[in-house]
């Protein structure tokens, strides 16, 4: 199978990873689209380095996070408004759940790019060792950061919603 065909087949199967990263890092549809394109291109450029030593999904996560973290938009002059309409709708449509989820999304949107990467990998059930390998830090550092992020999220979430 030609490399391009093989890449498209794998990407097609795992494109939800890029969608997830774009949703976490971008808050408007055009920005999300731009990042999706950038991640796809970066993945294609470095596809030759994928030797199947790790799973394609793990490899794609690494590419997507590297791209998202180094992807800077020009600073907007106006105040930053977090558009919660763009966030995914909660699966369970209870008003309480919806409010809670929106509050948590708002809190995640306020996190730094590194913290977003940690949250992203954490919600994907990667171990601290794997997260550390992907980010280039020790598992102990991951654990410390996760404790801090969880507490930050709890605090921020309470600003938007009283659980």
């Amino acid at each position, binding site marked *: 199978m030609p490399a391009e065909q093989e890449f498209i087949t794998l990407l097609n199967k795992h494109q939800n990873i890029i969608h997830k990263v774009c949703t976490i890092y971008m808050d408007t549809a055009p920005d999300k689209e731009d990042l999706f394109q950038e991640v796809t291109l970066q993945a294609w450029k470095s596809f030759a380095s994928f030797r199947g030593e790790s799973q394609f999904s793990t490899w794609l996560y690494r590419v997507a996070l590297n791209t998202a973290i180094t*992807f800077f938009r020009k600073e907007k002059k106006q105040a930053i408004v977090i558009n919660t309409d763009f966030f995914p709708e909660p699966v369970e449509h209870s008003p309480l759940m919806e409010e809670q989820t929106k509050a948590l999304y708002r809190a995640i949107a306020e996190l730094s790019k590194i913290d977003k990467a940690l949250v992203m990998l954490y919600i994907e059930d990667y171990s601290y060792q794997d997260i550390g390998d992907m980010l280039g830090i020790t598992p102990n550092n991951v654990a410390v950061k996760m404790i801090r992020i969880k507490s930050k999220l709890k605090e921020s979430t309470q600003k938007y919603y009283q659980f």
Partner: protein
Amino acid sequence: MELDELKYQLNKKLDADQPKPASELSLLLKKATTSVIHKLQRSLWIDLIINMLVLLLFIWQALFNKLWSLRIYFSTFIILSLIALVVLIYLIRKIESLNSTVLPVRQNLEQIYKIINFYKIICFRVTMIFIPLCLMYALSLGYIEGKSGTSVDYTIVIQKLGSKIWMVLAGIILYLSAIGAGVYYFTKWFLDRLYGQYLIKLKSLIEELETE
């Protein structure tokens, strides 16, 4: 726990997200990347092409100029252009190797920072060093050539100027200072505008990853 609650919500929702068809993914591969490192790579290629064209001009001048001082002057610049060529090729290859590998986030950030910072420092230093160096070198060669009788003899010019020589010297110094200051601030502003903010952001990301 709130985060674990989100995990379920987000994964469920995104898994049900409208996927792009394979044909659209194929089209994306034909588009151009907008990353800063790619822009730097493009700048380096342009620098490389300009450098090679200038090198040809220098070789022409070094071989066929009537004045031996200018032949020496341009010969020196052939060597400097060749050094610049090596540096440019090194940087392009470094970026190509970075593009074709997938490093952990921290190492990736450090590599990008190193490459851009190296380019910024080299550009600034070369610009700053070359202005006085070129002027001094050109004046010295011109003076020696004038003494040998094949060009204008500056000692005769100085004698003719008499007491006005100080005014001429003051004018030259003022002119060079203005050029020097202008180039210094322009180069600094230009490089900062291109890469300054990006480097600050990269540095802060690296520091954030390093701290526990």
